[in-house]
């Protein structure tokens, strides 16, 4: 019976990265993460209205960061690569995207993180998840600066 329960739990895919968890080596190399640097990983999509509101604020936050210590990485989870490219180009043209973006059309990265909603921010340092922010926040730029101050 206990084998059945374990099998069902594994099949139900309830696993997700939570605060304190370490990322797998595969994920670390995929995201190109280095030690001793704080990474703010933001999951977004072109169809997500809240993400569209948040991205300009993330860009604003990125302007005042020390890039030797902190890096923002965007993960675009649009399934259509052309749609993702058009969305990112439009954002760049308006000056609303100034950080590295990794496209995840097959949703392999986001499926591993398994966030509760979108947009979601993950603070990662030394391969460990330090904090998770789910959902859009009006003053996310200020929130990022405050969080980074606490993490130093």
């Amino acid at each position, binding site marked *: 019976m206990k084998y*059945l329960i374990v099998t069902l739990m594994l*099949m139900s895919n309830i696993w997700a990265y939570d605060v304190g968890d370490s990322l797998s080596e595969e994920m670390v190399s995929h995201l190109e993460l280095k030690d001793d640097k704080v990474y703010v990983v933001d*999951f977004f*999509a072109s*169809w*997500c*209205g*809240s*993400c569209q509101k948040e991205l300009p604020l993330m860009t604003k936050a990125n302007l005042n960061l020390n890039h030797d210590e902190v890096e923002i990485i965007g993960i675009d*989870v*649009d*399934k259509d690569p052309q749609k993702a490219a058009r969305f990112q180009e439009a954002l760049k043209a308006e000056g609303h995207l100034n950080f590295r973006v990794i496209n995840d059309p097959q*949703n392999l990265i*986001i*499926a591993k993180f*398994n*966030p*509760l*909603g*979108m*947009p*979601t921010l993950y603070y990662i340092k030394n391969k460990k998840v330090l904090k998770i922010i*789910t*959902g*859009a926040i009006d003053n996310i730029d200020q929130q990022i600066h405050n969080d980074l101050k606490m993490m130093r």
Partner: protein
Amino acid sequence: MKTVFIIITLLLFMGCAKEVKPWEKETLAKQTMEDGGGNSLIKQFEEHIYFSKEASKGGGGVAGGGCGCN
């Protein structure tokens, strides 16, 4: 034998209970999925009736804009 049958049946039905993940809600986030099919006049009309019946205004929407936020 009966237990095995029940387990196999339950496993077969697991596919029916697939959860829609937040990153799979592109279609649900479309304007046409809203009340009134994205027609602002129908929505306005329905809101007008709702607010007149409830004798109040606002609070008719949901948080998150359909993208699974909040």
